[in-house]
């Protein structure tokens, strides 16, 4: 009964999303306020109904209603209640429902918060969002209903959630990631609305910026959590695997990062319009492409949902309409747009253009690396695979010029910058960065570690240049109190850049100085790694709610002093008959100690994998700092300034 209620709510939601497409677009076309104003309650109702559907599925999981197919295949009565809730989005169908919940949520937020926009623009934005909604509601109802029943032959108990997904990281990772993916739909809608109207002014960029920042912020956190989750759950101590699905989330992130920078240029200088619009379309298109890759089974990955060509066909068709349509519109409209702004070769515009170029190159690398095996195979050239070394080396080379530019750009003025005045202060900070990098590295005994030095140097350069720029601002604004006059978005930039510096340092240090050992240990044995002594003190049988297995206790010493106690588990999930590693991690800013318990060997002894990973935390802390930068920018006052749409504006844009 509850499940049918959810299904019914989704059906109504589909109808509402159709209305949401038709009314505001018609209103904008006709210049009539009535139909546009109607979009707001429709959007809110859409969100409400989707919440009802989502709530119905949650209830089915909560109540262990195994007559619902999705519950029977992804949950189990032994599963603790919090994992029963996460199981809601553990399957393809449930995650699609989460996806539409978020899409309708963003749509409702746009409807509520876009009061200050001209009505015509509001109508177009909501209409485009409505259209995107239609596609996903149709997909979920026709191809992947989460409310299908197993009646009349329902099972007594369910098949359990994939044990990989039974983790705290999984509770928050997909919602954040989807918030990011779906959030780019709003930037996309802004871009299409601008293309329809043919107007891309500074106001438009200022309205689009906070939405893009918000989506980017969620995506950053989502990717970070995914990486952290993989680190803990997969038991290989890795934090990024260049898996097709990870790549699918990285591509919109890279393009989204380029987009927030490009939007800044469009807002401040009224130029880069064709870049900005293309990036906004690309960010959402890549989110859709990611959804297609994960759900169609074109690429194989540990993350893939079960494959079904008809789902893939539907998504491909939707992709063709949305992406193909918007790119066609882009070609038709953009050729008429001219930028008036003039700028010299050495100016902030050009440096930000460089940022776009590097980020897009990086996206292209990920794109080709992910899809090249597909191209290769479909051209009849056989199967190949592209692995980590390819991505790692190219990303290393891309990071060098990118980080150099990143440190420099905030110092450079818009339009034109003389080289001379920058040399002295920047030279000083550069020397500072050199001293810092070499100094930190000299603490490690291997000065031959070039990658680490390079990463440290780049990170230190970005840090120094960013701090230096703030120091310069402080001088200009009359001391430290003057810094309070800086706009929030400026502080956002500073935080974002410092976060990036941390990320680069973390990656370079972890890649270079991580050590690992596969060992066979008996109780009482100890192994030494990088100055730490790991002693296995106990191994015992586990008795979890839906799993058994073994747990190992270790004591860690450094130079005779006890550092910590570690607890690693190897779980065996009864229902799905699968084995999962729960790694033990002791985290400090400068290093992680990481132990994964392996197979029991004869003896009795156990296989253990022990790692010391310096600075690995910096990767995630840097990402958190970047998202914090996004949040601070988002809170900038100028995005919340109220503007009353005047009749004159409405009239003017009708003819555009």
């Amino acid at each position, binding site marked *: 009964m509850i499940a049918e209620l959810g299904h019914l709510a989704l059906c109504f939601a589909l109808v509402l999303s159709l209305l949401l497409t038709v009314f505001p677009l018609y209103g904008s076309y006709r210049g009539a306020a009535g139909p546009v104003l109607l979009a707001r309650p429709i959007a809110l109702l859409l969100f409400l109904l989707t919440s009802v559907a989502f709530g119905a599925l949650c209830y089915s999981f909560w109540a262990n209603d195994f007559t619902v197919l999705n519950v029977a295949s992804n949950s189990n009565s032994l599963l603790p209640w919090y994992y029963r809730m996460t199981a809601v989005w553990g399957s393809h169908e449930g995650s699609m429902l989460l996806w539409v919940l978020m899409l309708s949520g963003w749509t409702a937020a746009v409807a509520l918060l876009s009061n200050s926009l001209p009505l015509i623009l509001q109508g177009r934005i909501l209409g485009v969002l409505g259209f995107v909604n239609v596609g996903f509601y149709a997909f979920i109802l026709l191809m992947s209903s989460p409310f299908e029943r197993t009646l009349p032959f329902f099972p007594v108990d369910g098949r359990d959630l994939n044990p990989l997904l039974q983790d705290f990281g999984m509770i928050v990772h997909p919602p954040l990631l989807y918030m990011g993916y779906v959030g780019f739909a709003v930037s996309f809608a802004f871009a299409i609305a601008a293309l329809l109207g043919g107007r891309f002014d500074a106001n438009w960029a200022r309205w689009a910026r906070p939405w893009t920042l918000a989506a980017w912020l969620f995506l950053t956190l989502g990717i970070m959590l995914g990486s952290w989750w993989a680190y803990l759950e997969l038991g290989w101590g890795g934090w990024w695997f260049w898996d097709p699905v990870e790549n699918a989330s990285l591509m919109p992130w890279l393009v989204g990062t380029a987009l927030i920078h490009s939007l800044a240029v469009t807002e401040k200088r009224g130029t880069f319009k064709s870049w900005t619009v293309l990036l906004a379309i690309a960010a959402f298109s890549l989110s859709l492409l990611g959804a297609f890759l994960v759900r*169609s089974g074109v690429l194989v990955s540990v993350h893939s949902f079960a494959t079904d060509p008809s789902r893939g*066909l539907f998504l*491909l068709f939707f992709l*063709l309409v949305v992406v*193909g349509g918007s790119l066609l519109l882009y*070609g038709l409209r953009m050729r008429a747009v001219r930028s008036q702004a003039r700028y010299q070769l050495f100016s902030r515009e050009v440096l930000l253009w460089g940022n776009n170029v590097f980020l897009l190159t990086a996206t292209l690398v990920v794109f080709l690396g992910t*899809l090249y095996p*597909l*191209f290769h195979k479909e051209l009849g050239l056989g199967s190949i695979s592209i692995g980590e070394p390819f991505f790692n080396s190219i990303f290393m080379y891309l990071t060098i010029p990118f980080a150099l530019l990143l440190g420099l750009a905030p110092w450079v003025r818009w339009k034109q910058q003389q080289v001379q005045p920058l040399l002295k202060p920047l030279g000083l900070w550069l020397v500072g960065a050199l001293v810092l990098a070499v100094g930190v590295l000299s603490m490690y005994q291997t000065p031959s570690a070039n990658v680490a030095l390079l990463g440290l140097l780049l990170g230190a350069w970005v840090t120094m240049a960013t701090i230096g720029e703030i120091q310069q601002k402080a001088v200009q604004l009359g001391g430290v109190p003057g810094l309070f006059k800086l706009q929030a978005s400026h502080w956002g930039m500073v935080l974002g850049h410092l976060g990036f510096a941390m990320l680069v340092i973390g990656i370079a240090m972890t890649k270079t100085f991580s050590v690992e050992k596969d*060992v066979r240990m008996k109780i009482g044995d100890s192994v030494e790694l990088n100055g730490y002594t790991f002693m296995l003190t106990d191994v015992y049988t586990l008795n979890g709610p839906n799993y058994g297995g073994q747990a190992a206790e270790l004591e860690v010493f450094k130079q005779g002093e006890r550092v910590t106690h570690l607890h690693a588990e190897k779980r065996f999930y009864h229902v799905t008959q699968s084995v999962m590693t729960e790694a033990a991690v002791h985290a400090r800013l400068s290093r992680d100690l990481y132990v994964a318990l392996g197979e029991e060997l004869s003896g009795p002894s156990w296989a253990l994998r022990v790692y010391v990973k310096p600075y690995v935390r910096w990767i995630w802390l840097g990402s958190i700092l970047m998202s914090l930068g996004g949040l601070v920018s988002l809170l900038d006052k100028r995005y919340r300034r109220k503007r009353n749409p005047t009749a004159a504006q409405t009239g003017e844009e009708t003819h555009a």
Partner: protein
Amino acid sequence: MRKALFYVPLAAFLALSLFLLSGLFSDPRDHGSALIEKPLPAFSLPDLQQPERMITAADLKGEVTLLNVWGLWCPTCNAELSFLTELRQQGVRIVGLYYVQPVDAAFGDSFDIKALRHDVEQKLAEQGDPYLFNIVDEKRSLIFDLGVTGAPEAFLIDRNGVIRHHHVGDINPQNWPQLQQRYQQLQEGDPDAL
């Protein structure tokens, strides 16, 4: 010219869609291994149960054989054992290729075939023994030559010792019927059947 540039993204996207469309209808797990239709590479590796006996490619000829790459360290392989045992009871000739993981000599760990034999025998006694015999590939040389990307994987080898099919992933009741078809075609001796 400048105007045409704005259509480049559209053209690139349409080209991509063609690939995605054709990708939808082909099996991504279907690896065209470089060794398909080629004879087994030459090797001489010990039998796990009788390490003094060396197995060569000639030992796999004569009958259609399913060469199964596996290891105790691989949970999916262990889960697969009981189904493979059923297949053995149905008369499928299964030979194991044991994937030995690298050992860290620096830690004083060395490869001990006796310990491994003990562990394997214990496991097979618990889960069922599908194997006619097990080849131990300590240096992973044959595994490398075969282009194995992980475990479990399996190869169908015909009477003449020619590799006819490469299966990536476990063999289970769902995907066996498809594999069985090829197995039976080879069994019936149709050299062109694939």
